[in-house]
């Protein structure tokens, strides 16, 4: 049920400031696409335009098209709330709801969407936690608050929460940047498993991580501070890291700047 994303001519603004300009790319279903690039190049902004989270920021607006299997997310009559149910998101810092238990955190999205029977809810929560490789660690304390978990566990809880509503696409905004190496490894393994079911887009600062987890990699850059970010190139990860077609990409990857 994963879906393809087709972006064409996308430009995003914060008020009058143009954050990213004229971005076009295709994200294949059942694959992991990584966004890399220096800080401030707009890769997170671009990610947030893919589930209409960008417009939540005051002054945020978008021009261009984002097609999710041929349906334009920014078309007329499109309900942003419905978009976000199809395109889930995991954030940089783990953000489980602090006042809810582990179980309620995973069930939060489902409860919004209607009346589930208790048993059905139990099944989905278990399935999602297993899907996030967290079940064995928390099955005995589902009613404890989610904020009592470690950072890595919290992030996997957030992933479980996101996949519980069965989205078609999963966006991850630097999901490991606040985690230690072991937790990072756990999340990376998880991403490898999740791509069987979802289209995954991940923003990362860590180039080794991009090389490890992604099938395709997109490199973003900006001409100068204050200039909008642009997509420099997107290609198979292997090619980007071995033989990129643009010099700037090679410079960035080999650590010559950024």
């Amino acid at each position, binding site marked *: 049920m994963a879906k393809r994303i087709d972006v064409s001519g996308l430009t995003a603004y914060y008020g009058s400031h143009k954050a990213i300009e004229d971005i076009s790319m295709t994200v294949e279903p059942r694959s992991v696409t990584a966004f890399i690039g220096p800080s401030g190049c707009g890769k997170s902004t671009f990610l947030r335009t893919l589930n209409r989270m960008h417009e939540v920021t005051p002054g945020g607006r978008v021009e261009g098209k984002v097609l999710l299997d041929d349906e334009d997310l920014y078309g007329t009559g499109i309900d942003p709330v419905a978009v976000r149910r199809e395109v889930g*998101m995991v954030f940089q810092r783990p953000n489980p709801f602090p006042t809810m238990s582990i179980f309620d955190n995973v069930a*939060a*999205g489902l409860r919004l969407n209607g009346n589930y029977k208790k048993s059905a809810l139990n099944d989905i929560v278990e399935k999602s936690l297993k899907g996030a490789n967290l079940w064995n660690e928390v099955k005995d304390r589902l009613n404890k608050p989610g904020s009592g978990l470690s950072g890595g566990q919290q992030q996997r809880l957030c992933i479980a929460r996101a996949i519980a509503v069965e989205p078609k696409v999963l966006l991850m905004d630097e999901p490991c940047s606040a985690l230690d190496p072991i937790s990072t490894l756990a999340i990376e393994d998880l991403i490898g498993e999740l791509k069987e079911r979802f289209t995954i887009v991940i923003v990362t600062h860590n180039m080794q991580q991009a090389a490890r987890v992604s099938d395709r990699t997109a490199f973003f850059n900006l001409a100068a501070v204050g200039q909008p970010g642009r997509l420099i190139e997107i290609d198979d990860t292997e090619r980007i890291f071995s033989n990129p077609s643009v010099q700037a990409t090679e410079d960035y990857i080999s650590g010559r700047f950024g």
Partner: protein
Amino acid sequence: MNITTENTEAPPPAPQPSAAEQKRASRGATRAGDRIFLGLSRGSGIFLLVIMAAIAVFLTYRASLAISKDHGNFLTTFEWDTNVVPPVFGIAVLAFGTVVSSIIAMAIAVPVAVGIALFITHYAPRKLGTPIAYVIDLLAAVPSIVYGLWGALVLVPHMQGVFGWLNDYFGWTGIFSWQGGAPRALLTVGVLLAIMILPIITNVSREVFRQVPQMHEEAALALGATRWEVIRTAVLPFGRSGVISASMLGLGRALGETMAVATVLSPTFDIQASLLDPGGGTFAQNIASKFGEATDQGRDALIASGLVLFVITLLVNGAARMIIARRKEYSGANA
């Protein structure tokens, strides 16, 4: 100025002085100026504590004088005759009126204030939210006597219709039956108090809602929550204790409000089941209205009732502060 060598050796931009360093700095404060200044500022703090203690002691002392002469039961008597010999007075009616009018005020003000706070932080367009918050700030500063004047002029006549309507449809409950007197009853007082405490509850709640971490709201949004669902899953749970303490602050104001109540209520020393018929008074209102013609004995009796009010507001405010303090620890651990 005697700069020690230690100081010159220390790296200048130390980001946080260690505890030991700070201690040394204050230990070294043998200079007279330092000692005097510390003494003055500590003295001021102690002075405040002394005032609080003095309030409790003096009120209790005068109150005990009054209560020892009381020929009624101070807690249960339905009378306030302090100028007869022997005096007979009790706070039952005042306690009833104070509590009931404050409950009415809270029942109206808290939901509305939460609504306005949400309106400012989450619903109003940015350009509208800021000036509204500003105006509400100003309204918190309107003197209570002016609310009283307005209540007597505008609110009381308007309540006539509301009273009639309540009596027609809900008179059977007993609580809303009305014999048709002037609508200067506890319900009117409750409504006026609600209007008066709205600004303060709104202001505090607004601050709390504004502090809800963006990431919690985004988490809900990313799950496909509507705006109301974001508020229900992320904003309200986070702000709950803040709203409770804001309400307690409002309750403290409502309990102690004097002039507004004195101008709209026609007090009777009686308790009625109906909120629409004249009955009851409040501690503060009773003090203000009876003080003018009170004898020495009468004034002590009023002080005794003031002591009860003091204790009640102390409890309410203490509870509010404890809730706030707990919230601080809680959010600090999670920040």
